[in-house]
């Protein structure tokens, strides 16, 4: 176990470095810096401004300072566009929002997805099964950027039950629609994955043995079948996390929730490189960390795995 953590961390470090180098080089090869505007600044002023942000230093030194700043003080530097804000302040505003509805959607899609999958598998070829399969097919072709507007149309414009956007300090009415929009498609894929792997497990010998012993069906399912059937779902959790982050950008765009995605897309239009890099690195780091956690869970659920 310790070995695995060590090895994964060793892979994570070059990954993060590549991420930093690639984003850094991309940003600096871009035509037009953050201070180009329609009315060009006088050269002296430009030089002063660039000196303030450290942009006059050689590139490797800039990169080095940036990395040192992050590692030692968790400081992602100032925003290039909003003079009075640092990237850290933007994180402080956006990250809690993204994490709130992200975590809720994640938990919801896993719990409901697994439940639906198991239910469909033990009631194979009944209407529950067909309904689950139909739902998962439909949700696959209705990605969240279609789901979101449809939800707004139904629940905000037609029924008027829930607000169609904003965050308002995280009141529950404002969270419901983003969470549904973000979780539906993952719920569906998890349900489908769970259903097929449960069906496979239910065919296996140890389940037949357990049933032959006269064990109640609920114990057979919950104690014996569930754990091995969960394995493919657990492998899928890593990608789900990544897609959730991508999805959260769309959610921010549709529901104006003001999460990190909002700042990232804004920064992309404003060429605010510091913010873009900061968000990329923070979410990249989170992704890598989460994948490590998934690997550990996998090893814990499946004792056959040797690293």
């Amino acid at each position, binding site marked *: 176990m310790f070995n695995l953590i060590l090895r994964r961390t060793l892979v994570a470090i070059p990954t993060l470095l*590549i991420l930093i180098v690639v984003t850094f080089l991309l940003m600096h090869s871009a035509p037009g810096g953050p201070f180009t505007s329609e009315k060009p600044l006088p050269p002296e002023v430009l030089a002063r401004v660039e000196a303030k942000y450290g942009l006059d230093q050689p590139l490797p030194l800039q990169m080095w300072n940036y990395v040192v700043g992050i590692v030692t003080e968790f400081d992602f530097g100032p925003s290039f566009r909003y003079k009075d804000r640092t990237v850290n302040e933007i994180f402080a505003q956006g990250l809690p929002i993204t994490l709130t509805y992200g975590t809720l959607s994640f938990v919801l899609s896993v719990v409901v997805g697994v439940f639906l999958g198991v239910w469909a598998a033990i009631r194979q070829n009944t209407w529950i099964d067909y309904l689950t399969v139909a739902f998962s097919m439909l949700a696959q072709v209705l990605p969240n950027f279609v789901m979101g507007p449809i939800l707004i149309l139904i629940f905000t414009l037609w029924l008027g039950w829930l607000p169609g956007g904003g965050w308002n300090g995280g009141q529950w009415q404002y969270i419901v629609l983003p969470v549904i929009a973000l979780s539906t498609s993952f719920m569906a894929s998890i349900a489908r994955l769970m259903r097929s792997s449960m069906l496979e497990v239910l065919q296996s010998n140890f389940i037949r043995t357990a049933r032959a012993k006269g064990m109640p069906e609920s114990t057979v399912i919950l104690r014996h079948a569930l754990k091995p059937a969960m394995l493919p779902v657990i492998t899928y959790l890593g990608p789900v996390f990544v897609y959730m982050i991508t999805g959260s950008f769309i959610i921010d765009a549709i529901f104006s929730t003001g999460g990190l995605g909002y700042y990232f897309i804004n920064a992309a239009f404003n060429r605010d490189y510091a913010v873009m890099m900061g968000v990329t690195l923070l979410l990249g780091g989170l992704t890598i960390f989460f994948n490590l956690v998934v690997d550990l869970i996998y090893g814990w659920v499946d004792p056959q795995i040797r690293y």
Partner: protein
Amino acid sequence: MAGSTPRLGIDMRNPIEIKKVEQMAENLAKMDPVKGRSLWQDARKRFFKNRAATASLVVLGLIVLFSAFGGLFAKWPNDEIDWSMLGQIAEMGQPSIQNGHYFGVDELGRDLFARTIQANQISLIVGFVGAAVAVFVGTLYGAISGYAGGRVDSVMMRIVDILSAVPYFFIVILLLVVFGRSIIMIFVGIGLVNWLSCARIVRGQTLSLKQREFVQAAQAMGVPPFKIVVRHIIPNLIGVVIVYGSLLVPEMILAESVISFLGVGVQEPQTSLGVLISEGTATMQYGTFWQLGFPLAFFTLILFCFFYIGDGLRDALDPKDR
């Protein structure tokens, strides 16, 4: 055969039966010697037995034809504004045969029929070319890595491990922001993401293929390694690669739509299904549902078709269920 006749006995008093038997003998005499079925014939047969996959192929074919030639029927170009409707899109812009806007007009008064065709073209091209790029790079990389083996293999695969942990979504957006929004950049961006898993799959297959006799024979005859990979290994991987590629196409279309939806994808006057869906959702509160409906219908149909075709191909080419 008549209903009363037993299946195996033939009633020779019946002239029709006699005629049938004569015909059968004739057929037998003319019959070609028995031909073995190749892997591909077998796969084709299995694929066409799958109704959902066959239907999807037909529908997809129709959509492709429509996207390629539908423009000939458009009465309006995709970038011209119908000034007569400006300001009254919600009241006058609905689909109608009379004024030539078969799918209605968009928010700015442009013909949605022509725009949808253009969007279909771009989305399909992004899907196919993106998948082709990813599959090409991934196959070559994976086959070389697997065939080389040893240290080269482990270094090449470590690189894949490291790269697959990079969250590419950001890199793609960065690329688009830095180098300007163009279709080429989208190809490069989404192609970059997806070759990694293809390389992994192909490498696994190559490892087992290179133990086979025909590879050993080629080695014994002194065929250079790269030629063995291209001429002997890769052709045997085609089945896996086709299945993977067909499942990749919808992923590509989705990825492009997400990027375009966020507004950093293709640029005006070009458009894609993601852009149209995004525009349609922005205006649906005014009751202009056709602006969302038509692009969305094509989008869902295309995705559905590709998913079923991919599934069908997998079932047809998977040697496990034979």
